[in-house]
């Protein structure tokens, strides 16, 4: 009861002191407002970047493991990976046999080609030789027409499923299905158009500028020998939870297929969404950290401003402290009174700062990337501002609390 009274009364006293010095309080809070806006906008922008990154690479699939010659994120010199043996289509077939009933294995080969319809040409289009399982591992489906079917692969059909940007670019408003498309020097029949994926960011793959053809046809028509081409193998795990175990299993089977001795290192790379996210976090983590440190400096400067004003406030009210002590205020009551004053100023700054940061985030969201103010950011902003208030108010408040009542009363 007594502590509750102490707290609530200290709070009231602090509020009335701030109200009595409105413009001073507002100017002091300005430093905190600027600091909070800077720190919070950095946080929301970082979140926005992360969201964009996730969206861009969502098609990678969080339950899909990719076995390739090279790792996606390459550390150190590249020759180690260049000298590895290519991964063959046969290896993919062997892996499918071993994992039968558990994982879905999809081999694919990629290459860039110019594509043409009548007089229109699109340059450097990514052409992917793949199988009907592509839509299972990448979670994308055609919006019109159909995707590749097992017999397209089996009979090495010259059919193509094209991305939405290619459909728009080559065929304009007319329906591309049933029309021809020239890939390199070979004619293909368009059988489907993939649904639009949206623009990519961060140099991620642009799936709207992608063409899928049967992997068997790819080797035949685009100059690769199917047996020797370097295949990427995508394997969809039976469930998200078993990813880790499944990855070990895939590695084990691949080692057997590649005929590695126990002492030898893997001569292939395991890639997955986590690999990309880790790389992203490593890179962006550092950038965001530096950003936060720089913006925190402005918050620190705001805190110093609060401390300064609190020293003035304590000195100005030395006599009042003396009176309060004479009629029974303990050190704790005086300490609380000034701590509440500084943290209320800072909390006010934090709230106003949050409002501005929310507006800025809205602008970023509308113009740049999907940034948003999460509840965690809101809560941490308020906690940070109160923390700054307590820290910067403590020394002045403590000085006030330990004043000698006789000397404080004598102060004019």
């Amino acid at each position: 009861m007594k502590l509750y009274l102490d707290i609530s009364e200290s709070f009231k006293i602090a509020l009335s002191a701030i109200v009595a010095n409105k413009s001073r309080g507002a100017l002091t809070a300005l430093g905190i407002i600027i600091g909070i806006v800077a720190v919070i906008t950095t946080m929301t922008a970082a979140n926005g970047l992360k969201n964009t990154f996730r969206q861009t690479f969502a098609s990678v699939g969080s339950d899909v493991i990719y076995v390739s010659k090279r790792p996606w994120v390459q550390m150190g010199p590249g020759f180690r990976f260049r000298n590895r043996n290519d991964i063959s289509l046969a290896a993919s077939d062997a892996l499918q046999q071993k994992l039968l009933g558990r994982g879905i294995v999809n081999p694919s080969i990629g290459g860039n080609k110019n594509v043409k319809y009548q007089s229109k040409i699109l340059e450097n289009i990514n052409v992917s030789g793949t199988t009907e399982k592509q839509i299972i591992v990448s979670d994308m489906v055609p919006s019109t027409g159909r995707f590749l079917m097992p017999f397209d692969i089996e009979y090495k059909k010259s059919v193509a499923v094209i991305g939405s940007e290619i459909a728009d670019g080559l065929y304009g408003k007319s329906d591309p299905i049933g029309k021809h498309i020239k890939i390199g020097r070979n004619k293909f029949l368009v059988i489907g158009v993939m649904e639009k994926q949206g623009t990519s960011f961060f140099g991620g793959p642009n799936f709207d500028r992608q063409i899928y053809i049967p992997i068997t046809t790819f080797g035949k028509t685009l100059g690769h020998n199917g047996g020797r081409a370097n295949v990427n193998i995508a394997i969809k795990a039976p469930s998200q939870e078993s990813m880790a175990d499944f990855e070990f299993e895939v590695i084990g089977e691949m080692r057997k297929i590649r005929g590695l001795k126990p002492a030898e290192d893997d001569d292939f790379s395991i890639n997955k969404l986590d690999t990309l996210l880790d790389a992203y976090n490593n890179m962006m983590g550092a950038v965001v950290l530096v950003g936060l440190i720089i913006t925190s400096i402005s918050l620190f400067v705001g805190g110093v401003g609060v401390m300064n004003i609190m020293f003035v406030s304590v000195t100005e009210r030395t006599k009042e402290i003396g009176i309060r002590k004479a009629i029974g205020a303990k050190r704790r009551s005086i300490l609380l009174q000034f701590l509440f004053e500084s943290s209320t100023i800072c909390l006010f700054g934090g709230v106003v700062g949050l409002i501005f940061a929310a507006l800025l985030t809205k602008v970023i969201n509308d113009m740049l990337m999907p940034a948003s103010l999460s509840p965690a950011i809101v809560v941490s902003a308020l906690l940070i501002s109160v923390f700054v208030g307590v820290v910067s108010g403590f020394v002045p408040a403590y000085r006030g609390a330990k004043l000698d009542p006789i000397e404080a009363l004598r102060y004019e």
Partner: protein
Amino acid sequence: MSVQEQLATEVAVAEAILQINNVTRTYFMGDQEVNALRGVSLNIYKGEYVAIMGPSGSGKSTLMNTIGCLDVPTSGSYHLEGVAVNEMSEDQLAEIRNEKIGFVFQTFNLVPRVSVFQNVELPLIYKGVAKRKRKEIVEKAIASVGLEDRAGHKSNELSGGQRQRVAIARALVCEPSIILADEPTGNLDSKTGEEIMGLMNRLHEKGHTIILVTHEDEIAEHANRVIRLRDGLIESDTLTAG
């Protein structure tokens, strides 16, 4: 017969509220040692009206600060209602001041910016009294000094006499053992001063123990016991008609 003996026989049943025994207080001003009190012994009994007098430098302020528990003696003992104050911590002293001492200062010492009501309420807040109870006590105290119609005013909207009445109301709310008034009329004109002294007299008649610190004989005349200090020692301690 000394005053102490006389009082002890006259008011045999009365308890000594305040027992000061051989108190000294030494402090340093720079390098210089100042012996403000050099061995003061004093008993004050319940219901007494005491004036402490003395020229400046006599130790009168130091004695008042000691009695008011704002300061602790360098040596000697001070018991307030049987409790040894000289051994207390700062926060314990704050509690004693809150509950047992009612201060009335020369310069009123009201908290600026807040209303009369809030000023009078303050000691009760520090005591931890619940809000509804506080309102009741504060209203009664303000009425007892005749300022009912000023309760909502800020202290800077009041005259000196009114401010001192607020201070007296504030001194009364915690029902202190002693009302300690330091030159309560020092900043007032003589007419207002007389009014305030009239109020103090009425409080004494109601049974309050009052200690006045003053250098004016006229003011000291209101008391029925006068203690004179000189050079940190008690020079005389006499009962008067009052």
